[in-house]
């Protein structure tokens, strides 16, 4: 009851301020740091692969699996809103793969990756038995950039069919890249791709990133890509 008189009205709310100052992404960042501990202990290099849908993430990983030396122990986690088609493709290419189906979520987060690691282990591929773990994120150039997974390297793909100015339109994702891989370069001439324009755009948003040309179809640049992931 109101404390000033006996009017019968409910007491006004008492506002008490509690200062927190913590990141909304704190939980994910904490989980990502935990994943990273697992990766370090196991001595496995982990790569987070980001791009828009249709850039050729799965094709690039298929080509990588085909050209990698047989002594290199690889596995993949692959995220999509629905279906396990990409995991099936990668398995057919000889790459042990676990599908992460995110339902309505537009990105992978560190907890999803942590759960998938257990499934990878059940499938006979514990982290300690791997040299390189490739994480193919959900095809999306916006949201995945905010969610660390515990990776060592972030790779962002740009296909020649998308347009040279894509990095300028989605700066946050390209800014976060350690390595930018230009894909489908076998089509560059047919679609009039201007590499100088793409380089100009990349220099503005990702000045520190290394840039590689690749074609999953011809195999161009795949060895250099593998070297960059392990180096």
């Amino acid at each position, binding site marked *: 009851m109101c404390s000033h008189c006996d009017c019968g009205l409910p007491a006004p709310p008492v*506002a*008490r301020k509690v200062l927190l*100052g*913590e990141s*909304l992404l704190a939980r994910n960042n904490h989980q990502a740091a935990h994943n990273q501990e697992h990766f370090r202990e196991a001595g496995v290099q982990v790569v987070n692969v980001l791009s828009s849908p249709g850039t050729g993430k799965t094709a690039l990983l298929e080509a990588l699996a085909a050209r990698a030396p047989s002594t290199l122990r690889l596995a993949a986690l692959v995220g999509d809103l629905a279906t396990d088609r990409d995991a099936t493709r990668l398995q057919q290419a000889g790459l042990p793969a676990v599908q992460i189906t995110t339902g309505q979520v537009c990105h992978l987060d560190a907890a999803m990756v942590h759960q998938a690691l257990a499934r990878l282990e059940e499938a006979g591929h514990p982290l300690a038995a791997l040299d390189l773990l490739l994480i193919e994120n959900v095809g999306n150039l916006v949201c995945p950039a*905010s969610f660390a997974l515990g990776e060592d390297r972030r790779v962002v793909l740009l296909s020649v069919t998308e347009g040279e100015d894509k990095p300028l339109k989605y700066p946050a994702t390209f800014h976060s890249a350690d390595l930018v891989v230009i894909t489908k370069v076998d089509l560059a001439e047919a679609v009039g791709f201007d590499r100088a324009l793409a380089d100009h755009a990349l220099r*503005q948003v990702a000045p520190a990133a290394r840039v590689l040309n690749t074609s999953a179809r011809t195999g161009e640049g795949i060895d250099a890509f593998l070297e960059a992931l392990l180096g």
Partner: protein
Amino acid sequence: MPFDAIHELSLMVALAERVLEVAAREQSERVLAIHLRVGHLAGVDPLALRTAAEIVLAGTVAQGARLAIEEVPPAWWCGPCGMEFLASDVLGRCPACGLASRQVLRGQELLLHALELDP
């Protein structure tokens, strides 16, 4: 809900968990306000955050809490010029030399700054 609001929704689910955790710890019966700091470069839309907050806080002690969003404009550091500059341009080009900055000083934050609780 528009498809592009999903990102904000998953952020708000994490926020709601944290807000309810703090409210329970503080033995509060009602959350009156949630203060957020959202940088322009954080890649989230304040309007979508509000919509998402309404959904995830419904039926909790934080239902109807005021969402106070302080937007933080981007600030960058230009190495060659040795100075801080403000630019709303997401590419962060230094107004003095025109080079793209490699270092963001502010504007990427996505912070749960404070809660107002009753009692």
